[in-house]
């Protein structure tokens, strides 16, 4: 093969409902590495793509939330296996996007896969930690069980393109919610590769929907969308936070006010799992 082979410039698409559609708007934007060199084209999602993604997530919710916790755990482990298979690609993309040395990128990818496995392990354990058998003064059993919130809109961290993304995405789907993720605006490639991983794994289509594009354009539509049950502000620009919270308050919606500048390498607690769970308490009469 000759050395001057023409490179294949990629134009990636969105990941909505298990398929890879182009943006409804037909727009795309250039993704560059940390030095400004061209990497690929990514789809620039519009508000209608966000709307379609929310319907896809809503459609997937009954199946995913109804799956047994054990089954969800198995599905998520499988995702980790596939991420392992794409390790080299992730390393190259993280290195390109974040401007870190290959060694550092490798440890970031390892941490991301480990983080995924960690959350996969929580799927069938979280109910025993957050659920309870409540002592009540009457002839009743009283249980509290955690249930998934519903459709979650996640604004992924802008800086940490893979580890940060996994840290905000995995806890949402681990507990049975479905999500629409707006990836890092300037560093979307690891998110796109992750959606390719998800598409070839056993995660049902629509459980994770990945949008690339301008966070400031998409976030307000997701925040005000009446069919979105929770909003994660992690990747939101500070200037937009107040507006997004205001928009979200118009509909019944949980808002996670997490900052984007966290140390993602630190081992998390179950705070993010708890954020997208609702406590359901059941009173059951005791037999005589």
């Amino acid at each position, binding site marked *: 093969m000759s050395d001057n082979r023409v490179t294949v410039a990629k134009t990636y698409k969105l990941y909505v409902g298990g398929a890879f559609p182009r943006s409804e708007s037909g727009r795309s934007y250039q993704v560059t590495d940390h030095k400004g060199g061209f990497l690929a084209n990514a789809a620039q999602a519009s508000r209608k793509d966000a*709307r379609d993604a*929310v319907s896809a997530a*809503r459609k997937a919710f009954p199946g995913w939330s109804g799956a047994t916790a054990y089954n969800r755990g198995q599905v998520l482990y499988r995702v980790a296996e596939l991420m392992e298979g794409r390790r080299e690609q992730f390393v190259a993309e993280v290195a390109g996007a974040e401007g870190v040395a290959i060694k550092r990128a490798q440890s970031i990818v390892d941490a991301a896969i480990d983080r995924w496995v960690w959350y996969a392990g929580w799927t069938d354990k979280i109910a025993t930690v957050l659920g309870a058998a409540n002592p009540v003064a009457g002839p009743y059993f009283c249980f509290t069980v955690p249930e998934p919130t519903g459709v979650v809109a996640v604004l992924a961290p802008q800086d940490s393109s893979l580890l940060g993304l996994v840290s905000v995405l995995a806890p949402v789907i681990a507990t049975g919610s479905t999500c629409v993720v707006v990836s890092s605006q300037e560093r979307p490639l690891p998110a796109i590769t992750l959606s390719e991983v998800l598409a070839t794994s056993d995660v049902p289509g629509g459980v994770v929907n990945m949008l690339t594009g301008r966070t400031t354009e998409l976030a307000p*539509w997701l925040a*005000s*969308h*009446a*069919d*979105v049950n929770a909003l994660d502000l992690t990747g939101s620009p500070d200037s937009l936070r107040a507006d997004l919270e205001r*928009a979200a308050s*118009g*509909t*019944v919606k949980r808002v996670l006010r997490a900052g984007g500048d966290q140390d993602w390498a630190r081992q998390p607690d179950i705070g993010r799992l708890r954020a997208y769970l609702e406590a359901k308490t059941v009173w059951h009469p005791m037999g005589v």
Partner: protein
Amino acid sequence: MAAPSTTSSAETTGTPASGPLPPALADAVRDDASLRRFLHGLPGVDQVGVEQRAAGLATRSIKKAAKLWAIDTAIGMVDLTTLEGADTEGKVRSLAAKARRPDPDRPDVPHVAAVCVYPDLVATAVAELVGTGVGVASVATAFPSGRSNRQVKLIDTDMAVQAGASEVDMVIDRGAFLSGRYGQVFEEIQAIKAACGDAHLKVILETGELATYDNVRRASWLALLAGGDFIKTSTGKVSPAATLPVTHVMLQAVHDWHESTGELRGVKPAGGIRTTKDAVRYLVAVNEVAGPQWLTPTLFRFGASSLLNDLLMQRRTQLEGHYSGPDYVTVD
């Protein structure tokens, strides 16, 4: 397909009047043989043309004020339907409540055209809807297959009419139609029409079982000749149900019927229309193929159940400036 016309040269001489049929059509219904000759003499449907035109009209973009108008018009054209074996009186009552006031938060939303139920539930629906302007339609004639003898079908119709149905949705005998016994189908529609009395008759062609557009055109003309007030695409129990090209062919038929007789007959696509976008596409087709005067609930209906919720959600989206969700409309 620029000019949606199926009129043969003989028919165009017909004078627009709602009295007796023009000579060409009167001749067609004289006996079995002439009926067959007339139906098979109808020009064939250009399949590629009609599909292309339907797809072309579907690309029209309807936005803002026009969209709001279309949504309200479509809501007023909905025949809110429940045709399940598991239907109960309670379900029909809640459906009737929804028909009267589709969006309780917004009283300015128009009521739907009618509710459509099985004959045994007509009385329940009538009791809920009397004096509201919402009609009660009942399916009849051994719905959905139409496989029974004429006596049973007439009793079925009578039962619905006695219970107070203002509209009757009958099914044609597809077996007879497909094996060429047009006279039998014709007489049956006439007999049911007579049994309907004041109630409007909608004739369900079940286009999903007719296989070709030519058959759809023949069945449409057959139903119109026999006196059907509406021609309806499908029962909703057979796939494919309503499609845009099929509705085009039927709209051409009522348009041409109006040209040759001066009478206005309606069209009702039913089944598979679930989104506002679909509904708006049908309205565009009505406007372009039949004409603007068909954009009224007396001449065009949607047979649907889940469509109404999507229309309501879209209406809210238009007025509130953000996307709405199913948590904010009633559960069917």
